[in-house]
């Protein structure tokens, strides 16, 4: 009797969303994983091939260079985005009268999708800066930054920091505001300097905000696609392809569905592992209140 009622409840409230979720997420995930062990060509698979697709993927030198490039991108963008975002949050939570308008300015790039932002910066790097450099004779800008792998890397970082620091700023603001005022007053009475208060009181008490912001930037870094496509398009000569774009090209431009999907599975494992390690380390620093 009770279970009949439970079934009815499930059918009414949970069935539709769970069915859609299963069809859209669970089924492609499972079949995609299965396909990597077959000779799947995007349409049909005739036999199991073991680890062939994975072996082929790891023999592909461009896959390794993409993995290196992506890892570097994730680490550098994670550090800079969070430093900048935390700095912005400190500015915006200070006693400035203009803090609300500053917050709006810092947040605006985040409203706009990576493609539009990437295109804006492509104009800046390829045309605006180059035009100015020729006019005023600035050597390092005379050739577009996007034509050179190392400089294009920094161009990607600049745009990513500009885009995501506003979002992470909001998370840090929430953390900073959640600290009880009496704790801060107590430290002031004890004569702690603002820097000391920041390092030994504020940061440990808002460690949860760091856990979240680091997780989001880590995941976002591995999944970055829009800015990559719109800013560098992977060029020059596919040297600035992040993993997402690399998989996209492998599968949809070159028709290598088997290796493309194996690389995607590898990407999933890396993201999951990195996130797990990061969260479990960050959690250790969180103070129980």
């Amino acid at each position, binding site marked *: 009797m009770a279970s009949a009622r439970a079934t009815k*409840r*499930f059918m009414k*409230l949970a069935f539709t*969303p*769970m069915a*859609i*979720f299963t069809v*859209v*997420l*669970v*089924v*492609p*995930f499972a079949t*995609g994983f299965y396909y990597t062990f077959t000779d799947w060509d*995007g*349409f049909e698979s005739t036999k199991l091939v073991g680890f062939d697709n994975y072996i082929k993927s790891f023999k592909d030198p461009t896959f390794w260079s993409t993995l290196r490039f992506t890892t570097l991108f994730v680490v550098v963008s994670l550090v800079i985005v969070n430093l900048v975002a935390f700095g*912005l949050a400190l*500015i*915006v939570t200070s006693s*400035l009268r203009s803090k609300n*308008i*500053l*917050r709006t*300015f*810092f*947040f605006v*790039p985040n*409203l*706009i*999708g990576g*493609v*539009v932002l990437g*295109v*804006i*910066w492509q*104009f800046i790097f390829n045309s*605006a800066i180059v*035009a*100015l450099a020729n006019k005023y004779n600035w050597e390092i800008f005379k050739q577009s930054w996007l034509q050179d792998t190392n400089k294009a890397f920094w161009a990607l970082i600049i745009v990513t920091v*500009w885009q995501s620091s*506003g979002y992470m700023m*909001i998370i840090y*603001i929430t953390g900073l505001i959640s600290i009880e005022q009496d704790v801060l007053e107590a430290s002031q009475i004890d004569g702690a300097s603002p820097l000391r208060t920041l390092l030994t009181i504020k940061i440990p008490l808002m460690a*949860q905000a760091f856990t*979240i*912001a680091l997780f*989001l930037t880590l*995941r976002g870094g591995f*999944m970055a*696609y829009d800015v990559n496509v*719109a800013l560098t398009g992977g060029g020059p000569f596919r040297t600035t392809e992040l993993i*997402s774009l690399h*998989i996209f090209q492998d*599968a949809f431009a070159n028709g290598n569905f088997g290796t*493309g*999907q194996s690389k995607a*599975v590898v*990407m999933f494992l890396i*993201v999951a592992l990195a*996130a797990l390690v990061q969260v479990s380390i960050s959690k250790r620093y969180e103070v129980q209140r």
Partner: protein
Amino acid sequence: MRVKRSVGKRVTFIVGLILAFAYIFPFFLVFVNSLKLKPEVLANPLALPSHITWDNFSQALTKMNFFRSLTNSIIITVLSVSMLIIFSSMLAYYLARTKNKLSKYIFLILVTSMIVPFQALMIPFMARFAQFVSWNNRGALIFFYIGFGTALSTFLYHGFISNIPTEIDEAASIDGASDMVAFWRIIFPMMRPITATVAIINALWIWNDFLLPRLVLTNETQTLPLSTYLFYGQYTVEYGQVMAGLVLAVIPIVIFYLILQKQFISGISQGAVK
């Protein structure tokens, strides 16, 4: 002491001002150049236009099919977000109020799924849904957004519902209300703050999404990010027109933000911290 603090405040203000300028400058540059003719853009991108031309805008409006893409973006975003709100709030209600093994597993699967990057699914995804997509690509896209958005939205609602006392449901059911009536008449209206959060987070994601629409949509149904990207690729050298196109692409969401600024900020901080 007081002198020191006011110096510190002034430094903070100046740093803040410089940064704000740096954050907004790219938009300013795009806007200024959208009002210029091509040779003037190349001569000095930083200079103000010597004479303002709106011709770039009328060109961009037609060439990127602005109003068609805007309509598509609005339809897709509004429908996906409303369905996500309806389905995920009901699912969350079920999960929060039913304590059995099934609900526990469902919740666990939803939370775990949030770590799966779309890239890990997109290849089998496109193979599997090719027919569905060619039959009705906008409908398919909305369906996909519901699937991909369910986990986070349900998670947010679940946290909120867990804090609503069960006595309220019990009172409703004693008064003879069915589950559905109790939920839609009593619980759902109480969840307005979290509904705003869910709506804003999903709307920002869907409005700006590029990869999935790029795989799914055709020319007639393309959304704003997609048409901006294609327009830029086609007319890269028409600097003024491209800049006008970018201004057009940016305006709708910025207006939306300025109207709902408070909800945006609280939505993001709630959505992230939960």
